[in-house]
């Protein structure tokens, strides 16, 4: 199990918790991560909106770099995953588009054939590694903790192009959570969007959409929310403070502030493996995770 690790802009620039915990736990599951040189942005969402061909070029070059290493490419971000799958699909569908992009890539000294598999982190953990193997590595089960799974839009839609999990009834992230000994539950808002792509267009609406999901999760009595996508994590964790600043405007009633601990799955996996919180970038989570981390990490002593 050897993959070219593609981080993407958001993880590489600010979502370090995701990268740290992934680098820490995946090798313990027999996955060898090979860093790629010369990677660039995958083009989503700016280029896909303004210059479709620019978007295909950016995604194709990263795929070419992985092809160059002779490895399948592993992505930790829903946006990048969607970009690569859409690009592969469009280039397969449209021969002269593929020719155009390949010719552009040669100018950068890169060769793209499209003969590469794009692996999503959920697909790697659930389908390729498997929940039994993950449970075997759990020394400190997350007993008595009820977590809401948030796979994120591009991990499940559109089903027409093939996605790691079912569009309407995704269960894989739930299985991965229960594999750590924690509890989970189906809740209606599971397949809802975190709203982050709206940031460029309308600040308040993007926060409202995220707030609605967090409020629902809190309402159902979950102890926290788990995701694998840096965009979603950034919205729920990084901007939970901003949401609370305008909470009365969003829900136009004087409701209490939201206090929902947000985790990357790989962070929780690390804790369940008995690793120290510091080794999993948990100090970087801005949502109120201390009590829960204490409870889990405490169990490890």
């Amino acid at each position, binding site marked *: 199990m050897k993959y070219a690790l593609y981080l993407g802009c958001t993880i*590489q*620039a600010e979502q370090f918790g995701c990268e740290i915990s992934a680098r820490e736990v995946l090798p313990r599951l027999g996955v060898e991560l090979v860093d790629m040189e*010369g990677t660039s942005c995958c083009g989503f969402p700016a280029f896909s909106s303004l*210059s479709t061909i*620019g978007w295909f070029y950016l995604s194709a070059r990263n795929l070419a770099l992985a092809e160059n290493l002779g490895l399948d490419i592993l992505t930790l971000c829903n946006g990048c995953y969607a970009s690569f799958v859409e690009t592969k699909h469009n280039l397969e569908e*449209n021969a002269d588009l593929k020719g155009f992009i390949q010719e552009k890539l040669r100018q950068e000294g890169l060769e793209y054939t499209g003969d590469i598999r794009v692996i999503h982190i959920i697909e790697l953990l659930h389908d390729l590694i498997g929940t039994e193997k993950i449970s075997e590595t759990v020394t400190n089960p997350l007993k008595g903790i009820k977590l809401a799974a948030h796979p994120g839009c591009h991990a499940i839609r559109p089903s027409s192009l093939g996605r790691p999990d079912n569009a309407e009834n995704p269960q894989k992230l739930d299985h991965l959570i229960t594999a750590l000994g924690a509890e989970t539950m189906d809740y209606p808002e599971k397949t809802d969007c975190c709203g982050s792509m709206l940031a460029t267009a309308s600040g308040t609406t993007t926060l409202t959409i995220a707030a609605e999901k967090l409020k629902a999760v809190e309402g159902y009595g979950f102890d926290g929310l788990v995701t694998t996508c840096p965009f979603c994590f950034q919205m729920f964790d990084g901007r939970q403070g901003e949401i609370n600043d305008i909470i009365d405007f969003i829900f136009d009633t004087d409701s209490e502030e939201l206090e929902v601990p947000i985790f990357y799955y790989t962070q929780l996996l690390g804790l369940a493996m008995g690793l120290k919180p510091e080794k999993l*970038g948990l100090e970087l989570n801005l949502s109120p995770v201390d009590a829960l981390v204490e409870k889990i990490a405490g169990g490890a002593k």
Partner: protein
Amino acid sequence: MSDDIDKEQVEFVSLLLQREVSEMDAEVCEQCGKCTSACPVAIYMEGFNPRRLIAKVALGRTDELLESDTIWTCTSCLKCKERCPENISPYDVILVLRNLAVRAGHPYPAGYDETIKAVLEYGVAQQPRMVRTRAHERRDRASLGLPPAEKPRDMKKFNEVLGGIVRAGGSG
């Protein structure tokens, strides 16, 4: 058209956009409302209604849409594409309309330009930055023991190639 824009690339981009417009299938839409009723944005923003957008495209009224700012407030959640009984994808229609709006020189949210400039200059949408922990301490890739961020080997070549494509698309 200024000289540094490659005619052949402009030709290619418009050909591609034409093809995508024809494949929109907006005309078979039954106006059933499944897309709008599942759309998270339509609930909060009065003007945003994917069904009406498709109705206008089916009636050939795309210029009106290119000028409006509604095509820029989609959150790419893909529920509309997933659930349309006629396999129409308002999301893909919106992406094409955005590309056409940019080519036609209509205004669009500034955030996109900053990202495009950053990618052209540094190869990434965001340069690695200092972040703060819950305890308000400052951390960066180095202090967290992470390898330095990657970017394209030959930035000049990368900028030249990508810049050409973007200019052919009529933006940037």
